[in-house]
């Protein structure tokens, strides 16, 4: 059996080499849906980070008790519990944000990033590795969300965190904050990331 990565490796891999969005193409639904401004992107990234962290730790603690044929059910039920906590928390403290994100908070349950991390890492390694993996993957996910949301908000409204940064003569590209803009931005950024990694790969060899 192949050697499993150490906690530090897990942490570093999550950020860039195995970035959940750009490299593994996981969790695309929230990536596209909540990135029309930075504020909702930050909330989404925090919610996913919390759920991923808690679920990874719980799964890692009970990994010896898991039966192979029941494990996916256990993963989803654990995740659903934490998502309910996040949802109620948001509804209680940041109601406007919870209204804006709407169904995308409960949709974290079926976010493939979390199930994938539970399967790949938490159900095989100890708590330290699982926790650092969760932090690394969350940072990678947050990085991806912020890059897309930044591009979309700046081009779409000329603002960043609702702070006007482009001159007012800037014609707002409304299309960027509408659904098609999400597809274009992610497609172009994905191409850019591929191009950069191909180039650095060629240089290394």
């Amino acid at each position, binding site marked *: 059996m192949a050697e499993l990565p150490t906690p530090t490796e897990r942490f570093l891999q999550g950020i860039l080499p195995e970035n959940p969005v750009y490299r593994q193409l996981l969790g695309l639904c929230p990536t596209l849906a909540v990135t029309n401004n930075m504020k909702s992107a930050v909330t989404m990234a925090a919610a996913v980070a919390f759920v991923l962290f808690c679920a990874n730790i719980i799964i890692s603690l009970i990994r010896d008790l898991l039966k192979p044929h029941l494990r996916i059910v256990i993963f989803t*039920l654990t995740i659903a519990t934490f*998502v309910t906590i996040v949802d109620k928390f948001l509804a209680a403290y940041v109601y406007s944000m919870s209204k804006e994100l709407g*169904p995308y908070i*409960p949709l974290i349950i079926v976010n493939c990033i979390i199930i994938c991390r539970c399967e790949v890492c938490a159900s095989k390694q100890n708590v330290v590795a699982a926790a650092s993996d969760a932090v690394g993957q969350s940072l990678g996910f947050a990085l991806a969300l912020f890059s897309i949301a930044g591009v979309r908000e700046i081009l779409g409204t000329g603002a960043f965190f609702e702070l006007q940064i482009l001159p007012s003569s800037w014609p707002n590209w409304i299309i960027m904050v509408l*659904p098609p803009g999400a*597809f274009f931005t992610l497609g172009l950024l994905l191409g850019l990331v*591929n*191009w950069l990694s191909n180039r650095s790969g060629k240089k290394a060899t």
Partner: protein
Amino acid sequence: MEFIAEIFLIAIGAALINNFVLYYFVGICPFIGVSKEVETAIGMGFAVTFVMVIASFISWSITTFILIPGAPISSFVAGFFLTPEKAASIDLTILSYIVYIFAIASSVQFVEMFVKKSYPLLYRSFGVFLPLITTNCAILFACLTIMSNVAGIDNPENAWGLSKAITLALFGGMGFTLAIVIMSGIREELNFADVPEPFKGAAITLIIAGILAMAFMGFTGVDSGIRRLLL
């Protein structure tokens, strides 16, 4: 007449105007992953529609009869332990996410066993996609949309009945099928196109999806026109 018009509006809204994939971005994973050939795309589309209708039926029933305050089954059971007023005010909607995901997972399992046993030919054509559907956000999204129209609304008379819930699921699934089949048709042609190296695969698919989403934006406002005409 009004009822038929409402059903019609829900159907048009779910399938075209607010297409699940191109407007709400749910079900992107199969949309990118399983859209290389038209035939598999059709299989995936029908499998999703099938499960979506069944899961919506289950989740609508559970929400209406058990979860919302004053639902018949929960107040009947609680009536053994509590006073009738207290029993009628029991609100179990906090459990809804856990219940839905359980309903979806078990209905996928059930559909898989049923199709395998009764329609082996059908099973061979979309058998591989069935387990994947459990984690398809489109199904859960349909359940959540139905729930938001049944629980927690101000006027209980406006709560959706079963027919509206099933219409949403059926036409939402058909909208998904439409989007994924169009996509796979384009991608089959794409094999002959000269795409720049870094954009091959997912990147170009996403950009095409953007153009498709722009095309579907053309349906915006169709519903208000129909509403004026019918109501």
